[in-house]
């Protein structure tokens, strides 16, 4: 009886799966690329990796696995539930989620590892966490190369550089599925109403020169942009990073783009911040220090965390903030009740001395990775679930949630339902690396859409990767090196606020070299050479 029921269930699932596939070819999918074959339901598909299109070639028993992940908000909404239901249905799997509190994810990860009872899939937030490397070293996290051969979508929609950074042992073994984040070099949100008040404009194309940038900050600070007759505004809403460290507010225009091929100096690859032969970093420090001294940067900067910086921009204290362009609409919503006439625009970047904008230093192309542990009996099934999420069938579901739940198709257009706003977990699993539409929510107004698309594509175009691929060399674990990081960060902050002269940087760098910096540079160089050489 039980068996019969199971059979029945499976066949129902299979049928609905086919139906699901065919309904998807109806052309309502905005992400369909003409160059890609639609994932049809034809059984004659010669693509063996696409599990959804060739289920009969696969082991299609119901497979249950546990997934240990960090999602926010902590509570699974109805929309998220139906997303996982859709994934389970399409892949004939059952996913048992374990979502620890995000505030203490690290502790839970540690205990889970110590407990020895590993879930099949584990999300690691950092690609070079010691706990992850320990797990790789001891065979708890397994390489997935052989399964990736059957995962064409994963391969197609992931940066090559991401795979490189997951080769932890220096050989070709890949130890995880990257949670891709579309690489961008983000620009700045600017108070357009303030610009208008002052009769200023941002050049066509969205990028400005350093001088123009400074002029905007100056005018926002000194010329009473909000017209209230009080000197209560500042230019730039800066914040310290998660660890409280400050840094130059502009780096890319000074040629500081992470690890790149060096034009001079003893090393083939260099992060110019550490170069004794280049004064780019000193220039960037000087620039920031100057703006700080003139008062164009929020005077609360050293103790301002990201959240506060955003708040202070929304309060109308500052007029420029470094931000991802996708959030402009949210800023407008939050600010309109206070400033009914608020208008925002976006500076896509600040040009370097050659008039070019390029930047971005996320070396890995992802934020966290999914690993598969030794307790997985069928790693291929797990990989195929991930692969499905990036397939033409799965991707719209990942991006917008399951059709009929978070959105409905009306007249060939996707219309968000109430649940759409509550859908977030699915969006934090995997991404296609080439689909900026991911960042344009269905609720975006028609007026905003083209602007957003333009800003996004500009930011994506100008992004370059740092060549270190997030590599953390052994030298970085040396206690002496870790200790010296504090001294260095402290010095940078003090130089910026004028407590130490910029010229101190040379001496700090010398010390850094002596305290493990030299080995650090050498090891990163060796790593880059070994990967680039391939």
């Amino acid at each position, binding site marked *: 009886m039980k068996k019969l029921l199971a059979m029945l269930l499976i066949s129902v699932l299979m049928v609905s799966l086919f139906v699901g596939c065919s309904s998807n070819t109806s052309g309502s999918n905005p992400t369909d690329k003409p160059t890609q074959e639609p994932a049809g339901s034809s059984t004659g598909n010669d693509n063996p990796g696409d599990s959804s299109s060739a289920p009969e070639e696969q082991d299609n028993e119901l497979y249950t696995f546990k997934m240990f992940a*960090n999602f*926010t*908000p*902590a*509570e*699974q909404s109805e929309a998220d539930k139906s997303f996982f239901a859709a994934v389970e249905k399409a892949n004939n799997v059952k996913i048992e989620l*374990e*979502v*620890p*509190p*995000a*505030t*203490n*994810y690290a*502790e*839970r990860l*540690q*205990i889970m590892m*110590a*407990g020895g009872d590993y879930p099949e899939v584990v999300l690691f*937030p*950092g690609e070079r966490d010691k706990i992850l490397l320990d797990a790789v070293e001891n065979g708890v996290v397994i390489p997935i190369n052989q399964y990736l051969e059957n995962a064409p979508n994963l391969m197609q929609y992931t940066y090559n550089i991401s795979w490189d950074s997951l080769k932890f042992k220096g050989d070709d073994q890949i130890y995880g599925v990257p949670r891709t*984040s*579309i690489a*961008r070099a*983000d620009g700045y949100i600017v108070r357009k109403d303030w610009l208008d008040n002052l009769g200023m404009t941002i050049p066509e194309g969205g990028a400005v020169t350093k001088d123009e940038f400074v002029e905007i900050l100056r005018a926002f600070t000194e010329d009473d942009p909000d017209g209230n007759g009080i000197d209560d505004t500042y230019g730039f809403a800066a914040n310290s*990073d*998660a660890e409280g460290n400050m840094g130059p507010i502009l780096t890319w225009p000074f040629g500081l783009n992470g690890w790149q091929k060096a034009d001079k100096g003893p090393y083939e690859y260099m992060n110019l911040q550490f170069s004794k032969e280049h004064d780019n970093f000193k220039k960037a420090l000087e620039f920031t220090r100057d703006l700080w001294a003139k008062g164009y940067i929020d005077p609360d900067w050293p103790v301002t*965390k*990201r*959240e506060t910086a955003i*708040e202070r921009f*929304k*309060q109308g204290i500052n007029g420029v903030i*470094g*931000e*991802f362009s*996708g*959030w402009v609409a*949210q800023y407008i919503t*939050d*600010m309109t*009740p*206070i400033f009914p006439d608020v208008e925002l625009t976006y500076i896509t970047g600040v040009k370097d001395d050659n008039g070019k904008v390029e930047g971005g230093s*996320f070396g890995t192309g992802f*934020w*966290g990775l999914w690993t598969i542990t030794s307790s997985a009996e069928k790693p291929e099934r797990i990989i195929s679930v991930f692969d499905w999420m990036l397939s033409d069938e799965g991707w719209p579901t990942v991006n917008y949630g399951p059709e009929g739940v978070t959105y409905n198709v009306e007249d060939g257009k996707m219309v968000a339902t109430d649940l759409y*706003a509550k859908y*977030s977990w699915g969006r934090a699993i995997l991404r296609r690396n080439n689909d900026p539409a991911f*960042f344009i929510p269905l609720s975006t107004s028609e007026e905003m859409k083209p602007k957003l698309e333009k800003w996004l594509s500009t930011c994506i175009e100008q992004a370059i990767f740092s060549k270190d691929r997030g590599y953390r060399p052994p030298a970085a674990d040396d206690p002496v090196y870790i200790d010296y990081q504090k001294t260095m960060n402290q010095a940078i902050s003090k130089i910026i606020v004028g407590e130490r002269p910029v010229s101190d940087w040379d001496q700090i760098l010398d010390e850094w070299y002596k305290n493990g910096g030299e080995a650090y540079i050498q090891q990163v160089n060796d790593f880059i050479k070994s990967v680039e050489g391939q």
Partner: protein
Amino acid sequence: MKKRRPVTAGSVVFDIIIYGLLALIAACMLYPFLNVIAVSISDYSSYLKNPLRILPGKLDFSAFEYVFSSSLILSSYRNTIIITIGGTLISLTLTILTAYPLSKKHLKGKRAIMNLFIFSMLFSGGIIPSFYLIRSLKLLDTLWALILPGTISAYNIILMKNFFSSLPESLEEAAKIDGASDLYILRKIIIPLSTPIIATIGLFVCVGYWNSYFSAVLYIRDQQKWTLQLLLREIIMSANTQLLSSGGNLAEISKDAIPPQTIKYATLIVVVLPILCVYPFLQKYFVKGMMLGAVKG
């Protein structure tokens, strides 16, 4: 009592100074709470306009609606109430039972036991051995795991013991001569005389359980067994958490993940209000003169 304390001019001045000072201090201490309440019942833009407000701006209760729409809030309320009541009862019983013998000056082996307690106050084995222990006791994912590890606190035992040993020994000796056992003395003489300290330690323990979250982090997988304080931390610490987990990647800090201040403050109110109400009820146990009556009666 009043007639024995004559009202003099000096006494009146003294009163005015003390009443005034206390009012001033209380105003300072009340401020953050008023601010939190005012923000939680205002709309987000009123908060942005003046984050330090103590009067609400445009009234808006949607933050509370949001908090109560969460299915976790009710379950975590239930869990927190269970562990607080259960934990307080168990812990208070254990503390009294342990503190009483230790308050006896003549007790042999007392010094060794005290050393054991002091040592446990300063050193602990860390989270991993504790996790193994709870697992082998089969308490993972149960509310017992949130109650039992915290029942014994050296700090509370020392305070309780200190109070017990300040009680006049003549009382006990009289009872001993009548042939009463130590258990009887504890029940009939010591405990009734010690209501202030029992109320105090009870409050400490109770608040400790109410505020506990770390055991829940370590030992609970099922979100339905989360405690209130853990839920609160998830909401008010979210900005920090997000910043760390996104590694500075601005696009990955989403607006859903960081709720606005109004929601954070509303959650705070929902979490602390019940425990704030406990204290006024306990205050009657702090009334002076209890000892007098007891000794005479």
